[in-house]
């Protein structure tokens, strides 16, 4: 059957394909790791029962009270149930960057310099945000 509907561009379809796979992978990991977390199979950095008196605090005070990691510190504590959940969170927050990198070669091949630059700048912005270099003062 001939489908004469307007087609999305090559880069848009490539972006969509990776975005779909990444999003559902991230959500799947999030569910699995959460089940492991609440089942109590692994120890936690912050005990469940203590959480209730801690989640009223500012994030900076919570970190100070619990010694929970900031930045990418969770990656070295994956033997803990609560830290395991950050894998899914990182996948969800990282998939957009991967999608931008996916379309870079297409823009190069198409000689679309403007969008190539926009894509590379966006990767830089997201890398900067993900790096943990940017910190804000706490109260």
């Amino acid at each position, binding site marked *: 059957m001939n489908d004469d509907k307007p087609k999305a561009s090559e880069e*848009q379809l490539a972006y*969509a394909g990776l975005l779909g796979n990444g999003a559902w992978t991230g959500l799947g990991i999030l569910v699995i790791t959460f089940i492991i977390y609440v089942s109590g199979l692994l120890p936690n950095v912050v005990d469940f029962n203590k959480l209730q008196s801690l989640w009223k605090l500012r994030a900076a005070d919570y970190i100070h009270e619990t010694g929970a990691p900031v930045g990418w510190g969770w990656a070295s504590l994956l033997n803990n149930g609560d830290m395991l959940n950050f894998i899914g969170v990182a996948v969800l927050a990282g998939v957009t960057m991967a999608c931008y990198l996916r379309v870079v070669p297409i823009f190069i091949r198409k000689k679309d310099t403007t969008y190539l630059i926009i894509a590379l700048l966006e990767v830089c912005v997201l890398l900067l945000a993900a790096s943990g270099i940017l910190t*804000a003062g706490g109260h």
Partner: protein
Amino acid sequence: MLPGTLKILKTFVAVMVFLTLILGVATAFASTEALTLSQEPTSDVAWWVWPLALFVFTFVLGIVAVLGGVGGGVLYVPIVSGFFPFHLDFVRATGLLVALSTALAAGPGLLKRNLASLRLSMPMALIASAAAIGGAMIGLALPTNIVQTLLGATIIGIVFILLLAKKSDFPIVPKPDALSSALGIMGIYREESLGKDIEWHVHRTPQALFLFIIIGVMAGMFGLGAGWANVPVLNLLMGAPLKVSVASSVFLLSITDTAAAWVFINKGAVLPLMVVPSVIGVMLGSRIGVKILATAKPKVIKWMVIGLLFVSGLRALLKGLGIWN
């Protein structure tokens, strides 16, 4: 009274009662929690009650958000920060991840159907995501009461935008501006309701880019999805067709919220016990909402959402000002 009106009224009352019950239970739990905490460091409420309450609440929220035509994030942050015991830092981080997850799940379909436009979204996203990082940093640095007050004022402002902003299915763009022409921002999509292809282009791109700085800052600072602002800018200012604007707005959220979410993740403001039940609840609720949408009366729900936003915005404002704690 007409039977149709009676049916709408019944639906409205039923949904309002249900939401009131949920908010009431949440507030009651929060009060118990506050009372217990003032006496001893741990609570009598079992830890699992809160994720379960969040899941139930966000499930309903997901349904209501779809029926009301708003993003989950814009409802999540003011309501959860107003009626649940979590600190605003954690609520904003979770709100961002809720908005991000729903945008990530919807994005691929919208891009493949050519409703969301990569060429329209990428320049806007670059500006908005950089601004969102700044917004998130400002939000984490400011005292909580100031952020809460600003959040309340913003939510009440959103209520007025929802009430007053008109939408245009196919805005007239006499001539694309120089910047959009240089960037090649244009497209074509199949309008199924008319059975024909619609070609579109945009104008006033520089003004839109400027507004996306403000939108990005607000999205990052308050952890709100920014569909309420994206759509009017894309549709009314730039002149993109309504469907393209809504779809591109959802896709834009996936980029803007990603940038802001990383700041919150790196600051340790992500609590898995909040994030996972909220994300799963909203996503399941949204799926049910889409199914209900076929038979529901969205106008009634939209009014209910506006009312709910106004109450939660007022709550945030008064909480921030120390009048209603």
